[in-house]
């Protein structure tokens, strides 16, 4: 609630005084509200500053977490010697090399189509008259119960699709009269399988379909060993490595897949870490010292400073002891920088030391992300609770301001009424006294020839 200024429209010679009284009283009564509004602005500034810091802390935690993923995964990438096989290294992959050969077959879904066409897709009867069919798909046999109204291609299609047997049925219109409509049933996933639609249950001879494609499995060799799988995306053969088969190999062709550490993501992750550190450090510095911001002396700033010192002072458990071993240094102004050539020229053994230093999220440098997350967590973090306390203070002040303004408005209205009454009384009395004085003066003039008696 805001204060609505009232304007005094008096009629006595004291009207200006009355307006002054009113303005002065409203001004005084409004003072607490103005002070509280100033406090509200201060709280808002603090909220924005904490939110800004929280975002920067979260960024640093994320960069450490990402470094930990590289540390645990060894920053492995898989490279294939041919586009026939696309290899991708994922979680659990290990360095190594593999030979893919003899891709003799790619996985394909089975497809079957009705042997005969039908003149009409919505009226031509499919069953032998009993409105029953039997479908065989994925090694499962199911009876399809139709009615006189649904015993047609469209009815059969819909019934098959409702069964969820891993096949999809559709009606094909060939536009070749007179029997232009055919029923097509295809498996929804690759692999060999039998698809039949029988008019007589358990009688393969009554099958209405003929095989368009029997379906096939992917067949190839890994390091000379035969592999047969039902998909062209193969992740169950080499742990942590996905092989995407795109075609067949030529006779005698061998495709080499190498899984090894890649330095590029390591450099990128360390640069991101350094950038996030510097961004947070700048924001913290802005809250410390002679020209500190609104969070000067706030425990949040001290907490973050402690965490930053923890990061720069981290000592690795292995051969790499400090950030400088990764090419990360801190200048006299506290600004961190990263020399990526330190990673580029690392040998395999040194790279492993680097991964060990980075850790796996629970150990090593990356484990410090947990300490930072304890501050920045959007639900349970320390900074979240700080923001919540600001919210509570803000809403408490809002209520107090509203109460004060309501009181001022009421006071103003009451005072206005009292002033109006006093003003009217004075104006009336002034008028009456003037009239009376005029009467007496007139009497004296007539009687004595002068106003005063």
């Amino acid at each position, binding site marked *: 609630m805001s204060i609505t200024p009232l304007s005094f429209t008096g009629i006595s010679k*004291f009207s200006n005084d009355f307006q002054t*009284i009113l303005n002065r009283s409203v001004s005084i009564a409004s003072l607490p509200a103005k002070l509280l509004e100033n406090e509200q602005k201060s709280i808002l500034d603090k909220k924005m500053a904490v939110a800004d810091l929280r975002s920067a802390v979260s960024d640093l935690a994320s960069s450490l977490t990402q470094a930990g993923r590289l540390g645990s995964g060894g920053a492995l990438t898989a490279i294939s010697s041919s586009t026939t096989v696309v290899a991708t290294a994922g979680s659990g992959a290990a360095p190594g090399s593999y030979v893919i050969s003899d891709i003799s077959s790619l996985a394909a879904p089975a497809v079957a189509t009705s042997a005969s066409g039908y003149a009409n897709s919505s009226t031509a009867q499919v069953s032998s008259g009993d409105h029953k069919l039997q479908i065989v798909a994925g090694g499962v046999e199911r009876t399809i119960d139709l009615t006189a109204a649904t015993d047609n291609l469209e009815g059969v299609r819909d019934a098959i699709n409702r069964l969820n047997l891993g096949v999809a049925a559709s009606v094909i219109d060939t536009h070749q009269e007179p029997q232009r409509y055919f029923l097509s049933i295809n498996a929804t996933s690759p692999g060999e399988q039998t698809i039949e639609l029988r008019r007589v249950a358990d009688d393969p001879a009554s099958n209405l379909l003929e095989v368009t494609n029997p379906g096939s499995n992917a067949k190839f060799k890994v390091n000379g060993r035969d592999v047969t799988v039902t998909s062209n995306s193969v992740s169950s053969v080499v742990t942590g490595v996905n092989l995407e088969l795109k075609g067949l190999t030529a006779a005698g062709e061998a495709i080499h897949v190498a899984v090894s550490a890649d330095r590029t993501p390591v450099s990128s992750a360390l640069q991101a870490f350094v950038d996030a550190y510097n961004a947070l450090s700048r924001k913290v510095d802005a809250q410390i010292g002679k020209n500190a911001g609104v969070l000067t002396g706030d425990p949040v700033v001290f907490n973050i400073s402690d965490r930053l010192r923890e990061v720069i002072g981290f000592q690795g458990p292995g051969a790499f002891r400090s950030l400088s071993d990764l090419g990360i240094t801190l200048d006299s102004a506290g600004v961190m920088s990263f020399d990526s050539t330190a990673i580029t020229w690392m040998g395999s053994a040194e790279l492993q030391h680097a991964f060990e230093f980075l850790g796996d999220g629970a150990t090593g440098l990356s484990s410090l992300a947990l300490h930072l997350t304890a501050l920045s967590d959007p639900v349970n973090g320390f900074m979240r609770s700080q923001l919540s306390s600001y919210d509570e203070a803000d809403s408490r002040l809002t209520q107090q301001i509203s109460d004060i303004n309501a009181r001022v408005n009421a006071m103003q209205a009451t005072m206005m009424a009292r002033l109006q009454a*006093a003003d009217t009384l004075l104006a009336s*009395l002034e008028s009456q006294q003037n009239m009376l004085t005029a009467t007496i003066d007139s*009497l004296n003039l007539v009687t004595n020839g002068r106003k005063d008696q």
Partner: protein
Amino acid sequence: MSDPDRLVRELESCSVALLEALRRRDAIYLEYLQRREQLLARLFGMVAPNTGPEARAALERVRILGNLAVVEAQRMRHAVATDLAALEQERRIAKGLREVCGPHSLSLDVRA
């Protein structure tokens, strides 16, 4: 007793009642104020040179009573101004709130 004389006496008693009502801060003063105005308006056209000395003396008393009523009305205005002075208390509350809600106040310290 002539009509003007009666009118003057009625005006005098009305002025006395008005003054007493104002001193009591009784809202009935509004009625006396209105009545006094009506009587004055009637009297204004009735006074004549032959008005007796008693009536003249009564008129003078009415004027004095009116002046006293003005003084009383100004006291009422002064009462409003006195209430204004009481608002200084609000100012002190404001100062107290500033201390409570200050930058290092306990109310905004999450550790408190």
